[in-house]
């Protein structure tokens, strides 16, 4: 039986790693063979957070495309489900990936802890632990880098209906992976609390025995970016490293040494050159995709692929290193196993999205694969009507634009991940890989159209979405093989 990966993504960094994972899965990257479904669960009190909402939109689009494809063999291979879907098969709101946190939407931290109802002695004690800014802080913009606030607000997992649902649907063989940052507020506080809840014996919750014996992995992001100085923000990146050290010490004593989890991936970038604008949260917190989030997503793939090597109660610690230190990372700077994991898929998908943006107009209604004529026995469903339909534009086209946006963001961030060149002329569309020098001008899109013509007849019984994704999976692969671009 195929199993599910429950992916808890805590805070803004967790959401951005989930975004990178969605892109990898869309391109056809595979989880370990025993997994067929990913269940992303985004935990962030900052419900208006730009990164969170962008990730939710990407996950929703992924789901919309995936459910229209019958037995995909490459692009969008894995299913993505929300906890709400699993808990209630009648649930209509399938795009809802967030974990509901009670009393965080309208309350200040002071109201959340019932500060005004406390005795004067308790109030004084709280004032020792929390600043005036902390106490008056609105919880709907997160914890603004204060894990001491997060550890109070997030200590509600066991009472949460979503957690009870999660425990109820969790089955033997399913696994849990937690993504969080160590240098902020939400992730740093949420990760140990969530792990504590997963490993606690709580008779009130069904399924805790299974959770106690589940293999749990995690990705902990060490500081990998800075934020600019701002008088209007409580977040100060000068404190990131010190907070990270303190948190690591705590994790080491309470999580790693006590073997509360089976695998922990640590990722960071000392002396991070990336400086984001300093926004405490909400819509303005919308950071570009980053190389380390991409590598973080790869660590999730690695975890599922090597889960059989993990033993319950034995913690493995993993780190990631580049082959060569550089500010412009390309495929050749990644190690062989990482390249094998993602190269072909990303390159194929990139060629596909480039084609959709630049090559499609030339062929729709003209190439055999997109035209049905009067007496043809084998029909294509990829006609003008399909490419003009709202569903195509809203799902496939939107997702491919988001994929290109993601690669552009990775490219402009520092250190950059720049495996692709900016789009060339159509006549030279094969020249899109930064690692490869294409000496002869080659129209890859024309080659794709020729391959599409060859393959469309094999897919005439499929739905239009299945036809599209399976057709381009085959044709992009054929073009890459023909031009010897399937490996670095």
């Amino acid at each position: 039986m195929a199993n599910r990966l429950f992916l808890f993504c805590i805070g803004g960094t967790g959401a951005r790693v989930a975004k990178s994972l969605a892109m990898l899965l869309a391109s056809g990257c595979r989880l370990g063979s025993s997994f067929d479904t990913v269940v992303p669960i985004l935990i962030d009190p900052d419900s208006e957070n730009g990164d969170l909402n962008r990730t939710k939109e990407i996950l929703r689009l992924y789901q919309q495309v995936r459910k229209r494809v019958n037995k995909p063999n490459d692009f969008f291979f894995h299913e993505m489900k929300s906890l709400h879907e699993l808990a209630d098969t009648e649930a209509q709101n399938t795009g809802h990936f967030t974990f509901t946190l009670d009393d965080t939407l309208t309350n200040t931290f002071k109201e959340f802890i019932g500060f005004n109802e406390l005795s004067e002695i308790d109030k004084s004690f709280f004032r020792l632990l929390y600043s005036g800014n902390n106490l008056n802080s609105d919880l709907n913009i997160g914890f603004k880098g204060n894990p001491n606030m997060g550890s109070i607000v997030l200590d509600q997992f066991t009472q949460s209906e979503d957690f009870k649902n999660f425990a109820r649907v969790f089955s033997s063989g399913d696994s849990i992976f937690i993504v969080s940052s160590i240098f902020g507020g939400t992730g740093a506080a949420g990760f140990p609390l969530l792990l504590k809840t997963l490993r606690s014996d709580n008779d009130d919750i069904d399924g805790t025995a299974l959770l106690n014996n589940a293999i749990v992995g995690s990705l902990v992001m060490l500081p990998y970016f800075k934020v600019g100085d701002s008088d209007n923000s409580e977040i100060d990146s000068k404190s990131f490293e010190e907070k990270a050290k303190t948190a690591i010490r705590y994790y080491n004593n309470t999580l790693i040494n006590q073997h509360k989890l089976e695998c922990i991936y640590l990722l960071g970038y000392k002396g991070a050159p990336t400086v984001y604008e300093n926004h405490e949260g909400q819509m303005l917190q919308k950071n570009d995709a980053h190389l380390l989030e991409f590598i973080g997503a790869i660590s999730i793939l690695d975890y599922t692929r090597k889960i059989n090597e993990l033993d319950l109660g034995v913690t493995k610690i993993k780190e990631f290193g580049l082959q060569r230190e550089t500010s412009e990372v390309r495929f050749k700077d990644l190690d062989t196993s990482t390249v094998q994991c993602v190269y072909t898929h990303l390159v194929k998908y990139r060629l596909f999205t480039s084609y959709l943006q630049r090559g499609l107009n030339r062929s729709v209604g003209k190439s055999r694969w997109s035209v049905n004529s009067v007496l043809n026995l084998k029909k294509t469903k990829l006609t003008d009507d399909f490419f003009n339909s709202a569903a195509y534009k809203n799902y496939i086209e939107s997702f491919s634009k988001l994929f290109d946006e993601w690669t552009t963001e990775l490219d402009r961030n520092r250190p950059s991940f720049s495996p692709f060149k900016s789009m060339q002329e159509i006549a030279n569309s094969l020249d899109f890989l930064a690692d490869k020098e294409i000496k002869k001008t080659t129209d890859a899109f024309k080659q794709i159209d020729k391959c599409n013509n060859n393959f469309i007849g094999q897919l005439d019984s499929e739905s239009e979405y299945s036809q599209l994704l399976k057709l381009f999976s085959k044709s992009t692969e054929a073009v890459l093989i023909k031009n010897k671009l399937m490996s670095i």
Partner: protein
Amino acid sequence: MDLYEGLFGIGVARYQLIFDHALYYSNGYVHLGLIFILTPLLFTALFYFVYTYPYSKYWYWLIALAVCAVLVFAITYQHTLNLIFTNTHPELRAAISDPSTGYRNFASQLVMQLSIINIFLSIGLFAIYSLVFKQFSKSQGHLPI
């Protein structure tokens, strides 16, 4: 023979020497038939199975048809001309050499008539071949319509 003389009515008893010796006994009709059958067959096969340009429109098919028709005309014209004017039968040669018989003029008109007939026949076959081949063609299966 029936096709050309019967269906298209090109046979004229007065110039029987041409029909007997240039077209019938020297297998001229067979040659003419092969020209209008095989030329469009070759063209449609090339168009549907060898030509893989992925952005062809209906007028690409029309161009192929036109080129095929021109070629059929040229081959038929040249071949019929050879069959009649280089024929070695003594009576036919004598008749063509003597302008008073009218053979030379008739032969020239006949060459043109046969070429035009072959054009129409090849166009018809080109269309029929197209309907069959398009079912199996990967690149041009959507053409002509």
